[in-house]
């Protein structure tokens, strides 16, 4: 089971840069980068809400579930 954060795709579609988004949702660029590169272990609902508000999207646009192939 894998949850993929598609923040970079949404950002590219909205043509918004990392520093711009970081200042909009009031979190550090470093933290946003962790989120963007998929290194984050969890996302706070407040962060998700701020991201949705700033990018004008739904939580489902930012998160994707991908099933991992079973080991043979």
């Amino acid at each position, binding site marked *: 089971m894998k949850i993929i954060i598609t923040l970079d795709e949404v950002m590219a579609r909205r043509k918004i840069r990392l520093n711009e988004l970081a200042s909009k949702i009031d*979190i550090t660029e470093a*933290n*946003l980068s*962790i*989120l963007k590169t998929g*290194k*984050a*272990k*969890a*996302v*706070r609902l407040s*962060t998700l809400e701020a991201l949705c508000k700033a990018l004008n999207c739904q939580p489902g646009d930012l998160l994707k579930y991908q099933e991992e192939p079973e080991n043979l």
Partner: protein
Amino acid sequence: MKNISMNAKYLKIFSLIFVLPFIIFDFLYSWFIDISYNKYHEFFVSFTKNLGPISNSSLFSDSSVGWCAKLSSMPWAHRLLGMLVDIVSLGLFLWGFFVFLSLLSSYQKGVVFSQESFFLLKKLSKISFVWVLYSPIKDTLLSVICTLHNPPGQRIITVSFSSRDIYHIFFVGVIFVITSLIYEGYIIKKEQDLII
């Protein structure tokens, strides 16, 4: 966090002003200023005289405590050898002391549960462990070195494990427990940092 920084700052100032000079002075006083031992010796003799028959027991014998009393009569080679044995202990203490100071510096910056502070504490616990183990060995070696110049029959070898060593072992154990706590804190902090 502000509280930790303040405490670290005051402890660092206290350590630098009082602990470090005292430790170095104590070493120099022991090996270079003969009068200290003479005074100590005189005090000891007068103390044991007042004890009457008990003063003859091995517990209060002149040699068991005052074996370094006559520093001036020690040959320089023996004195240097004694200093060398003592300086290992001092070196270990100073190493641990400076590791502790760097730990305080990182606390002063507000960095508590970090990899750096965990490594510093781990280093400190290992150094203190070696220092504690070396302490009774040092006492034994010093008892031999300090009485080596005496005529046969008056040379002493002491093997001791006192309550002081028990206290030291207890404190080293406390440092080990704190190290493992800091490690757990560091793991939690690392995980917390990845929650955005």
